[in-house]
């Protein structure tokens, strides 16, 4: 069995809607206490996978456990969920909405109200405590729903596209909140189609494309799949030193781009200096998660991530 304690696990989940396969054999394992990123373009099956793991819908095939329980709703009191499509009752006040969401997951209403007041204060929304949701801006309403997601102090928080709809400042605040939750021992799973968030926050990611998990592992593991990239600009366009650059090097005038050879940079550098290539600039960069994503999921899917489109759109 697995040595690490898992907060969530899925095995070969399959889900078909009206004959179309939305998720095709997804398997995930989320270690307890981790920040876990779920990457993929819109329509790749992220939300459907999360909904199956949370027990909102049952998979056609496959098994899942949430906090060790095969019936996710049985552990609903220890789970918080922010759906992609945010939904609150517009007539409820911010405080009541947060307390209500807590009450749904077993938190007594008075405690929920107390915590709601504190949370709203802590997030600069004290003035809106007794205002109805409908009077809040979209970003504020989203923050209120997020606070409602964590008011009962869950052990596992699932956030579906939590960054979408937030401005840069609020995105930063959300990242902070996620880090703080993790530091308190809460497992955080979030889905996103923006790689940068995952890169900054996650210890472990899953990359999903076309309903299939293309990769699951540590962010470093994903990046280490690629060799570091060398960017070189010389003053001389050609010379005997060219023989010591990899044959696959991409050349554009006096600029070269290539993967660092297994032998390392020394031999290449010596050759460049000995033959007077004239090094103008030289950088060796570790590949980012985006490069890893492109390598793993393919150019086409990466392009969809940028446009936010679904496969086939």
């Amino acid at each position, binding site marked *: 069995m697995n040595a690490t304690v898992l907060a969530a696990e899925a095995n070969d989940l399959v889900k078909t809607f*009206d004959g179309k396969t939305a998720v095709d054999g997804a398997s995930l394992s989320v270690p307890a206490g981790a920040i876990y990123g779920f990457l993929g373009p819109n329509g790749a099956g992220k939300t459907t996978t999360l909904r199956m793991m949370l027990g909102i819908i049952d998979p056609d095939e496959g098994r899942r456990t949430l906090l060790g329980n095969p019936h996710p709703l049985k552990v609903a009191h220890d789970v918080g969920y922010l759906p992609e499509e945010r*939904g609150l*009752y*517009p*007539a409820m006040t911010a405080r009541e909405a947060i307390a209500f969401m807590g009450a749904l997951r077993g938190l007594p209403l008075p405690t929920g109200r107390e915590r709601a007041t504190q949370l709203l204060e802590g997030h600069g929304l004290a003035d809106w405590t007794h205002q109805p949701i409908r009077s809040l801006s979209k970003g504020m309403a989203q923050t209120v729903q997020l606070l409602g997601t964590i008011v009962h102090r869950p052990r596992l928080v699932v956030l579906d596209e939590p960054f979408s709809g937030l401005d840069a400042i609020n995105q930063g605040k959300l990242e902070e909140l996620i880090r703080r939750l993790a530091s308190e021992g809460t497992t955080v799973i979030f889905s996103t189609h923006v790689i940068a968030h995952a890169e900054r926050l996650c210890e472990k990611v899953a990359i999903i494309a076309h309903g299939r998990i293309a990769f699951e592992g540590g962010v470093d593991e994903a990046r280490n799949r690629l060799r570091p990239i060398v960017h070189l600009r010389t003053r001389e366009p050609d010379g005997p030193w060219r023989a010591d650059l990899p044959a696959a090097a991409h050349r554009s005038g006096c600029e070269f781009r290539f993967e660092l050879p297994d032998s390392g940079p020394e031999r290449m550098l010596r050759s460049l200096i000995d033959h007077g290539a004239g090094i103008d600039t030289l950088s060796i960069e570790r590949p980012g998660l985006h490069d890893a994503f492109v390598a793993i999921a393919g150019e086409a899917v990466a392009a969809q991530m940028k446009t936010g489109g679904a496969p086939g759109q």
Partner: protein
Amino acid sequence: MRELLRAAWVIGRRDYIATVLSKTFLFFLIGPLFPVAIGVLFAGVGSNIADREVDRIVAVVASEEDMAALEAARERLAPLAPGGGFVMLERVAPAPDAAAQREALLGRTERPILGVLEGGLEAPRFTGTLDERSASVRQLVAFIDDARRAEAVGGLPDATGPALAVETRRRSASSVSFARQITARMGQLLLFFITILLAGMLLSQMLEEKSNKAIEVLASAVPVDSIFIGKLFAMLAISLTGIIVWIATILAALYIWGGGDFSLVPPPPAVGWPVFLLLGLVYFATSYLLLGAAFLGIGAQASTVRQVQTLSMPITMVQVVIFLGAQLGVGEPEGAKAIAAAIFPFTSPFAMIARAAEVEALWPHLLAVLWQALWVALILKFAASIFRKSVLKSGKPFRWPWRRRAAR
């Protein structure tokens, strides 16, 4: 189970508070009271229907000749009252002790009578719970006059005779029995109107969560069964809040118009007024829950207001059919029709409230309430599972049996 009910309570509480504390709820409360006419109109219509459907019988203690003359007169006048609106005559052979016979007839509860007509055509005398101005007594007068005229043609010199003497009693066992049948029908009618007015609201009950997307928050936190139970009972509580306000207003009105006491209240039904009112509330609750559970389930399938509006008419028609079915058994609470209506879950509350007006025994009500509760649970369970499958698209997709093969 505890968690199921706890979650249902959280959801129901929100629905109840959201509705009752809204400004529109005030309109809901005063709606049926504001045009008092609505209540009066319904009561008027109701008693008309009820009067017409319960047989009005007068016992006639008379010789065969007098009876034949009266029946012949009734026949001749019949075209004036299409639809058989005349009081019915039942001949009873005169007994030696006329007074004892009269009292026995007035105390009869099987085929209850409005009163007794004695004295033949010569000295007619009516004893009963009606006075001279009532339609039934005036019809009797018309029968007697017509019978006398017919006999005059046959040779009697004097076609007129003494006027009908009327002795009005405030109450007789027979009149109570008669009133109970009316109460039975009125009870059914009221129950039906209130249910039809209030249960329809449940059709659109899931629309709010669907349109504001809160359904996702709910479905991820609690079982769908809890959502359904919470919503259903919240609407029941909202309706009962309204009904209690309305009943209190009606009682106050009866008290005030009755000059400081409840003299306007009709004779009590078999189980007495307090128990009858209580059973009325209980059967309202069960009929509301039964129909409401079905409506909630059907309405949850709809995703737009338009769909709900389209659904509401056929559903009202189904309710009318149910009501007509329940009416069959009135007057014969132990008959096969009444028993069948009491067993079929949707008509059961209507049949049982009618029974409460006519039969004293209370244990069948306990049995009926348990039986109805069982069906509420079954319908809710079924509605929730269909909702999970077809709306949340959970598990294997739902397909009608005849489409299963085509889909493969």
